[in-house]
């Protein structure tokens, strides 16, 4: 488990910082803009 956890952490470290902070709640909006 420790190894898996460490691997997950190192993969997360590769992500752009803005992608690491997932919001706790999201909503969806859908538009057609012509």
């Amino acid at each position, binding site marked *: 488990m420790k190894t898996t956890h460490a691997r997950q952490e190192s993969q997360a470290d590769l992500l752009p910082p803005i*992608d690491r902070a997932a919001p706790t709640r999201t*909503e969806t*909006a859908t538009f057609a803009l012509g």
Partner: protein
Amino acid sequence: MRTRVGYAGGTKPNPTYHDLGDHSETLQIEFDPERITYEELLRLFWKAHDPTWPAQSRQYRAALFYHGEEQKRLALESREREQARHGRAIRTDVFPFPDFYRAEDYHQKYYLRQDRILMGEFRAIYPETRDFTDSTAAARVNGYLAGYGSRTALQHDLDLLGLSPEGRKRLLDSVSSR
């Protein structure tokens, strides 16, 4: 915020760009309501098109697809405000959210895909196309490359986007040159 383009509003199952049926080209946004509200997105939506123009085709019509009763109320209220502001018939319709079909990969983050260097960096981070498409960093870089956002805003964002020194310089240069 995550963005993706696709097809919605029609009845044809599994539409594609070359076999769209009665669907329309659509933008879907996944957003954090604590960072930006649906009302703010509606303001941008109305600003981004002329709602008094009749649609040239079903593929390229303007429409609002609401998710839930609260979005329905806000969407209809915003449409009424537009009607009053323009004093003319509004052609942009409001519908309940139907199915959404993601567009083909080559349509996602279109401007970023045109930049071989920056796209290479994102490919290395996100080998899976779906993860790349859903990346907030990719959406933001795509927006800057498409001509949106100021140099000041980019300087504020630069540490958040996961780019190499070369990638950062390239993006800054593209924003500075306009």
